């Protein structure tokens, strides 16, 4: 279990239970009294404008930031985390193979993971610093699922990724979700992703604006409250 989080048993089907989560950093309240739950197999997208506390929320759930309130993870789950960026990783000579080795899994496990996600083997010998943002994102996703997690926390999957790369990342996420039955927590400012992936959506702007299935809770009113002004959004339906 992660440091700083409370281990508990929020019920068989519940993966995560958050109650009254408040995060104060440098005397500023970043997240105010947030409560929600995530069920097994669910795909929750956290949306909100820049500075709404989305990344801070993910880091608090992982126990990486000090907080009050409770964050209770189901005892039987294993969490994988895909951060938004790793600013220092391009500073030293490191191949993709080296980066995987840092996780300490066997080459067989690694090969199985990269084989399952259409990952060109030749990329193992590329320098991490020479990868495109899309390729690097793919490496990070592979890295995170190496330990066979059942929950994946994903921070802004497509930051700095071009449109073709975005599509690859989204397709990969859908594939992972389908094949591995992962519970996903996704943070994004990209509303279009919500209808594509999410079984539920959490609108965050320091406090909870709305929470529930996207079709029910994403109304023009809640979006206006979330983004503070009239915004354009489109709704993508599958029927």
């Amino acid at each position: 279990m992660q440091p700083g989080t409370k281990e508990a048993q929020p019920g068989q089907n519940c993966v995560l239970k958050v109650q009254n989560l408040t995060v104060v950093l440098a005397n500023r309240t970043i997240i105010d009294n947030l409560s929600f739950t995530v069920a097994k197999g669910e795909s929750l997208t956290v949306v909100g404008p820049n500075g709404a506390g989305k990344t801070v929320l993910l880091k608090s759930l992982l126990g990486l930031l000090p907080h009050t309130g409770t964050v209770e993870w189901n005892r039987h789950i294993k969490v994988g985390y895909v951060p938004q960026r790793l600013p220092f990783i391009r500073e030293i000579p490191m191949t993709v193979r080296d980066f995987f080795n840092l996780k300490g899994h066997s080459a067989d496990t690694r090969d199985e993971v990269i084989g399952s996600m259409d990952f060109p083997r030749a990329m193992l010998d590329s320098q991490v610093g020479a990868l495109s943002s899309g390729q690097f994102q793919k490496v990070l996703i592979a890295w995170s699922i190496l330990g066979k997690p059942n929950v994946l926390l994903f921070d802004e999957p497509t930051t700095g990724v071009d449109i073709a790369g975005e599509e690859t990342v989204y397709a990969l996420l859908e594939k992972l979700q389908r094949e591995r039955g992962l519970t996903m927590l996704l943070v994004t400012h990209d509303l279009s992703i919500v209808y594509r992936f999410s079984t539920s959506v959490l609108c965050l702007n320091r406090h909870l604006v709305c929470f529930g299935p996207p079709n029910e809770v994403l109304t023009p009113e809640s979006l206006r409250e979330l983004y503070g002004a009239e915004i354009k959004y489109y709704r993508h339906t599958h029927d």
Partner: protein
Amino acid sequence: MTDLMNWQLFFSLLTGISIGCASAYLGAVMLTRRMALVAGPLGHLTLPGVALGILYGFNVSLAAFPFVILGIVVIWWLEAKSRLPMEALTAIVFASGVAMTFMFLPVQQAEVALIGDISHVSLRETIASVALSVALLLIIRHIFRPLVLATVAEDLARVEGINVRKYNLIYLVLIAVIVALGVKMVGGLLTAALVAIPAAAARNASHGLGQYAGTALGIGGASSVLGIIISKVFPFPAGPLIILVSTIIFLVTLFWRKWNA
């Protein structure tokens, strides 16, 4: 007399190679933290200890060690409390080291403190330096994987359950040992270079992590050997020569990289 000189040269070379390799290997990890210069201020912080060693006639590295440890404990504690970048804290701590030194060390005796002296090492000092350097190399090798992960991706490391604070402390203690050893060889002013330059040169010349660490280690050892040998031929002190040799290697790798880009 010649025999004695030969033995002396052998001791110097042995001490130089082991300290050169160990500091370069540690430097390979430090460079990733943008922290190579931490060794600089810590080097300066050894100066009061070195001064006491010179004035009262005991081993310079031994005298320097408690001062570096004190500095590191203060920096580590401040980092945990204030969350200021370690570089900034180190800079705050180090100036006091230099100031304190010149309160009581006569300037004419300062040369050894400032640029070191590896031309007169005893058998006992050689054995101690080699043993400590080998221990250091083994420890760094053992914790290399979590250390690099905590360095390049602290959040990922913590999610993996790596105790980053523990590794920070181990890492700082290793720096303290290397700085105390290095001060004997190149003096308080140049220890940072002993750590930083081989790693910087290796970075220019390497593709992967293993090659990078190995090249750094090789450059560290080779610079020491060449520096000490040149000092036997020309009338220059070994410490600055060791640093200049590694600087030349760094420049060569820089041009090599530009050439191959």
